[in-house]
């Protein structure tokens, strides 16, 4: 028996040592949408924050709805999402301290190349949706309360149409952007996508092309298709919130240096940025 105590003690001390060691590094829990993670943006910029602030960022990439819910429950220190109305409500209800502009990209309507609803070249998204509904061409909706789905609902409303899932042509998928694009590619459906996700998957979507929104954000003529992202530190009173680190993160994310880094993501691979910097400091630089 006595012999076993020595190694056991070593193991216990090692474990204690480990937990001590890791607790010295701050952990920031970031709840965000799949688009920021899937596009490779976070991988490109977060290491700099982790190094500068000697912290680790735990990313939960999910739908905007769940990301906001995570913030409300106090299971995240900061949220980075894109659904302006939901973000404002989050702050108004006291779940977050303040919303800050971070960046934007845009949405496009993609569809089959034979374009049965003849929407190619239409500049206003709501008009294009009107044509799709009029011709009963298949439309794939995210249907998951994500930022993209919220935007799509607003565009239908602007078109004065209330698409019904029972009608057959409007498919409410309840899946992520990538899955929805695959669905549209397979079934010859139209869908609304953020440009970043579409560009990053374009190689696997031979049957789809951008029909409304142009080849880059500069060609997008419909301001309703703009897609702004905001960052909100979660209310510190929820308990267990690392408010200091969250504030440092917001400060860092909106700094001119990080913003110029955001602007470079995607340029090599797609010839255009996936996100355009838009923080107050960037605009006033």
């Amino acid at each position, binding site marked *: 028996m006595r012999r076993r105590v020595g190694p056991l003690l070593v193991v216990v001390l090692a474990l204690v040592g480990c937990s001590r060691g890791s607790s010295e590094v701050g952990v920031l829990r970031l709840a965000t949408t799949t688009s920021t993670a899937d596009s490779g943006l976070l991988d490109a910029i977060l290491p700099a924050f982790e190094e500068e602030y000697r912290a680790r960022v735990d990313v939960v990439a999910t739908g905007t709805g769940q990301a906001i819910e995570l913030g409300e429950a106090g299971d995240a220190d900061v949220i980075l999402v894109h659904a302006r109305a939901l973000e404002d409500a989050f702050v108004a209800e006291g779940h977050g301290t303040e919303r800050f502009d971070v960046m934007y990209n845009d949405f496009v309507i993609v569809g089959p190349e034979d374009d049965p609803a003849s929407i190619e070249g239409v500049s206003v998204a709501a008009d294009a949706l009107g044509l799709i509904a009029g011709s009963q061409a298949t439309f794939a909706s995210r249907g998951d309360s994500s930022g993209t789905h919220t935007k799509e609902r607003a565009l239908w409303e602007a078109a004065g149409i209330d698409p019904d899932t029972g009608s057959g042509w409007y498919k409410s998928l*309840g899946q992520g952007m990538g899955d929805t694009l695959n669905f549209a590619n397979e*079934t010859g459906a139209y869908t609304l996508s953020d440009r970043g996700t579409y560009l990053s998957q374009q190689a696997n979507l031979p049957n789809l092309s951008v029909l409304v929104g142009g080849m880059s954000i500069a060609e997008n003529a419909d301001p309703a298709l703009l897609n702004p992202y905001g960052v909100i530190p979660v209310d510190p009173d929820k308990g267990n919130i690392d408010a200091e680190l969250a504030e440092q993160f917001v400060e860092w994310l909106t700094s001119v240096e990080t913003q110029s880094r955001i602007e470079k993501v995607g340029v090599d691979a797609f010839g255009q940025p996936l996100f355009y910097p838009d923080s107050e400091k960037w605009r006033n630089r």
Partner: protein
Amino acid sequence: METIGRALVDAIRLLRELDPELVETVALTLQVTLGALIIALVSGIPIGAAVGLARRLPGRALIVPVIYTGMGLPPVTVGLFTYLLLSNQGPLGGLGWLFTPTGMITAQTFIAFPLVVGLTMTSVQGVDPDVRTQMIALGASNRQVALTILTEARIGVTAAVVAAYGSIISEVGAVMLVGGNIEGETRVLTTAIVLETRQGNFALALALGIVLLGIAFLTNFLFHRLQVRQGGP
């Protein structure tokens, strides 16, 4: 705790009101699960019995491990395989089964089939070999022998049914990929749970989980009654 309490209340309310969307989702869940289960049983039990009873089976050393591996296939891999099979560019794209309940049944059948084959095989192998020797001595045909041994092995075969049923009704990866989780068309209980969770509707998601658990329990209760009537434990 509050979420769990709300979920229970929600589950009871959904069931009491017979929420039409819930009824539709439950009906499709049962249609897909039972459809796949029946196909897997009709094809898997005879094959399992044949493999288990064959005296000399060329390649048994390979066939049996293949069946065992099939019993542990990750459903999402089966889903991916079925997706590629049924995709426009796939060999069976012409059938137009992708994103339909038929496609979901196809994927679920691939998941259930090895389970039925494997468990039937082991349960017929567990039957006293004397039964077979005696029947052959009495002049029974191969078919009669197989049927008698299957009857002897019925408790094990029922276990095969229960295992296959449990694995497919609770499965989410394959039906999500192949079905597409389309509202009113291919949305089943498991994919609805994923969707509601992602939207942060934890109470509703948990309520659907409770409904799923209830259905699984009811069906297994019936299976067990069947087993008892057959003289099982």
